[in-house]
């Protein structure tokens, strides 16, 4: 079972690493963020699988921290787009 869990962790990590090609290709910044987002979720899954394989319960807390913080890059990106570029802003603001 340990071997299977490690293999699964490696597989998930390989998959999300492959998805990072989107950071290379873009074309838009939104696409780049999607790759980072996928890496965040995949990183959480890899941590949980690794923790179960090696029987280190504390990896769950690392996964919890990632779950809370992995979204921040995207939020910063959305807030970082200046108002002048943003046609939605007129409907959005009070």
């Amino acid at each position, binding site marked *: 079972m340990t*071997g299977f869990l*490690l*293999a699964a*962790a*490696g597989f998930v*990590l*390989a998959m999300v*690493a492959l998805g*990072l090609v989107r*950071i*290379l290709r*873009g074309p838009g*910044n939104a696409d*780049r*963020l999607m*790759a*980072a987002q996928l*890496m*965040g979720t995949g*990183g959480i899954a*890899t*941590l949980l699988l*690794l*923790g179960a394989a090696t029987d*280190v*319960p*504390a*990896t769950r*807390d*690392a996964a*919890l*921290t*990632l779950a*809370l*913080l*992995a*979204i*921040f*890059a995207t*939020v*910063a*990106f*959305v*807030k*970082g*787009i*200046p108002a002048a570029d943003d046609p939605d*802003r007129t409907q*959005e*603001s*009070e």
Partner: protein
Amino acid sequence: MSWTLALEAGLAALVLGVAVWTLSVRQTFAAVVAFVVYGLALTLVWVRLSALDVALTEAAIGSGLTGVLLLGAAARLRATEADAVAERPGAGVRAAAAALAALVALALAAAVLYLPEPAHTLAPAAMAELPATGMRNAVTGVLMAYRAADTLLEKVVVLISLIGVWSLAQDKLWGGRPGLLHHADPDGALAFLARRLPPVGIVAGIYIAWLGADQPGGAFPGGTIIAAMWLLAMMAGVTDAPPISRRWLRLVLVAGPAVFLAVGFSGFFTAGAFLAYPVAYAKALIVVIEVGMVLTIAATLGLLMAGPPERSDKP
């Protein structure tokens, strides 16, 4: 064993690839996104190196907060990127830099390959003294007892850098509110997240800080998570950054170092040395210090992210 080594080799290749990409890409924004991934991958490396405390801190600070900070700066500095391209150093300088970097990397690699056998370690010494601190997590024991002066001074360093950030405000805005005003739709998706996530996140932050005594965790990752939740609420416009002239804010900022110093000086009378803890009360004192530290770390890191005052407090 071969499974784990294959996994680690893949992980190392991922870290290296992301690092090369961070350096070589032209757009700063793409470089920062790659840097966020670098932090995530390093978190996994720390888990493989059995350094769970470091993994937690790296997840919170390395990829989380640093990424937000640099993404925000990249967005504000987008206009300056084109000028910088013209300043690229010539081929000679680049070759010299590459040679120097390669030399440093080679020297470090040689040092890694010729590390002394058997390895020097303080692990048995740390474990032998650990019961006296009342902690069961050796890393927290090191941070709070054996190297307490380090941790105290680190708090001061972070506080000084916050003062440095504040002092970059324009004179007329001193004492005002940090950062730009965030307008947000009160019914929008981001505001919804900023209302739902922080209650859970703050509990999780306190939980991780509390765990620190016995398991991987502690005041650093816990305080960082709370700071991130505060930052989320500020970015979504659900709450506004407080004016930096507020007395309560200043009190929260010095609470951690002040409690630490007070306990440290009381050590002269109770245990005969600065920052020495009387054995019977060691755990209680360390918990008191940690509570103050979580508060101060959360406030300091949140305000470091918010930046210098950019709006006058007067309406």
